[in-house]
């Protein structure tokens, strides 16, 4: 199976459309969405409908949860955007988000938005220690998560050592059967690794490989929409810098 893994779309219509076109062009058999469909971006409703139409495995992110919950523990900009987003969504859209599960499994792969260690605590997997927690909590050979907006791969070897490794974009990385793996997939709608291109990942379960991919999109158009919607200026600027 060739599985396209998308996460942290954050209401970015242009990025999502570009990634979905890329996914189709590369011949994937299935799509999985790891949450945070809304928040930050100017097109939450469009993105939500598009994902809903795909009828693919989708799990809940912290921004999705904040629509019916509270944005109290979020940063100022995130909270302002959530308040704005709440007003944009129809009740059935908010209900659909609310009904999303926190974790899922496809062909033995574990999917979670933040960390398998405590899915509802929204732990950021940004280091070997946090990756260790996630890898120990999951039994799957490959666990996929998002939330961090920076792509990174971690492995747990038979001696129990966790190693983070940076993988070249577009290079198929062999998921050695001697280790268990954790892939933090970069964000479709708001990359934070100084590359403004939309990030996603392609998992090939037959060949046991993962490829981190980037898809260019018109981030200027999205930034203008962010500004036009009256959302914080910083949210527009970071789309241009990918920072």
């Amino acid at each position: 199976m060739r599985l396209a893994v998308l996460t942290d779309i954050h209401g970015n219509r242009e990025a999502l459309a570009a990634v979905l076109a890329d996914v189709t062009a590369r011949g994937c058999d299935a799509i999985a969405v790891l949450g945070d469909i809304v928040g930050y971006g100017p097109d939450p409703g469009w993105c939500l409908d598009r994902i809903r139409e795909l009828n693919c495995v989708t799990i809940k992110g912290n921004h999705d949860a904040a629509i019916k919950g509270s944005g109290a523990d979020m940063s100022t900009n995130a909270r302002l955007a959530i308040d704005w987003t709440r007003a944009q969504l129809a009740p059935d859209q908010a209900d659909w988000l609310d009904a999303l599960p926190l974790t899922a499994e496809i062909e033995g792969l574990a999917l979670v938005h933040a960390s398998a260690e405590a899915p509802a605590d929204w732990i950021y997997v940004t280091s070997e220690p946090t990756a260790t927690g996630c890898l120990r909590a999951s039994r799957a050979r490959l666990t996929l998560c998002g939330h961090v907006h920076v792509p990174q791969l971690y492995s747990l070897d038979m001696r129990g050592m966790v190693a983070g490794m940076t993988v070249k974009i577009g290079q198929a990385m062999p998921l050695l059967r001697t280790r268990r793996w954790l892939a933090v997939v970069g964000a479709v709608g708001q990359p934070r690794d100084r590359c403004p291109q939309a990030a996603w990942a392609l998992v090939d379960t037959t060949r046991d490989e993962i490829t981190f991919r980037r898809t260019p999109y018109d981030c200027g158009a999205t930034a203008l929409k962010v500004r036009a919607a009256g959302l914080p200026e910083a949210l527009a600027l970071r789309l241009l810098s990918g920072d």
Partner: protein
Amino acid sequence: MLKPEKGLTVDGFTLGDQLHEGGFATIWAVTHPLYRSALIMKVPKILDGDDGPTIVGFETEQMIMPRLSGPHVPRIVAEGGFDTMPYIVQEAIPGQSLQARFDKGPWALSDLIETAARVADALAALHAQGVAHLDIKPANLLMRETGEVVLIDFGLSRHRDLPDLLEEEFRIPMGTYPYIAPEQVLQTRGDPRSDIFALGALLYEMATGKAPFGMPSKMKQLKKRLWLDPVPPRFLRPDLPEWLQEIILRALEVDPEKRYQTAAQLRFDLAHPGQVVLTARGRKLRPDGWLTIWRRRRKMRGLTRLGATWAKADVPILLVAVDLSPEGEALHDLLLTWVRRMLTHQPESRVALVNVIRTALLGIDTGTDAQGQNVHVSRLVALKHWAAGLELPEAQLTFQILENSDAAQAILDHAGQVGADHILMGARGHSTTRRYLGSVSAKVVAEASASVTVIRAPG
């Protein structure tokens, strides 16, 4: 986890005899109902769960080997994880490693050149796939019945585009001490020129029967190769030609920048001994004096880094086919202009100039023209005259007059032999004959494995 033994069946593979037991792995003959060709299984010897180097080396092999292709590497059939038994199943390559031949002492010159060229071919093919082997030694070289050298044991290798599992875990120099390159001693992993150094050490040993830096066993002895030059091979074997010593010592240069930059270039020089430019390296008959060594040692002592991961593996070989017939003259200046343009971008390119003497399909070629002049010599003179316009140092140029009834085939064969990256040639005008018989440049474009640029006169 299962232990390998005769009769055991894992994932459909049944173990036969144990063929070899090394320090880190055992090798077994295996059979599988779906595979007819002879197969072997390599199983790492893991003493306990904490045997880091063996485990990670084995994982490195599992990561890199299935991503390689071609005749210079074993074909991988299957791999197993640590859940049942770790293994790699690969095609069996009959015969012994080159170690047996090395144990017999110095090689005859012709065998040496032939074998070294085949090793260089294998390295060029490996480097082209983005992998540095980093443990080139006689025991890791096999030979197919068809003559190709096969590289084995990729436990220390480094893939340009994949993470280095070894670098993340170990902080000691890794390699086989007699052949390890100075930059590997300083822990640069992934410079393909380290393999060129190892090939230099192999060449030295083939020529003299001795390893250039002895058989060090301790780290302290290992570092000496940063300042102590090896005894010149011609001191140990006076009948060795200067050009071969030049090749050997150039491959063994301490600074990777001063070595051959690619295996294809070394291979090229082995094939064209007459055109190896001799320097003091080729001529020297004794090791450097104590003062030179002392100065070098002082300079090297503070050195912490040497070489670079995949620095510049692309010093291209540019093959230029020059048509010396009156018909081709119109393109002479244009071809020259284009070679110059390409050299502006890649000033270090090797330029291989060729001209083809078309021999008759039937009948006997006399090799002399109507005036009794040797055609071969006169073409070579004309080719050198043409090349003078390039104003390139001699070391960057080679000349070759080829003979073939099929000019395109001659160019294609030569491009393959020298490992050309780019072929540059002129296309003659259009004519009815060529429309029916096919043009030389069209055939080269269609069949070459290198890039081809065809120059045409405008109009």
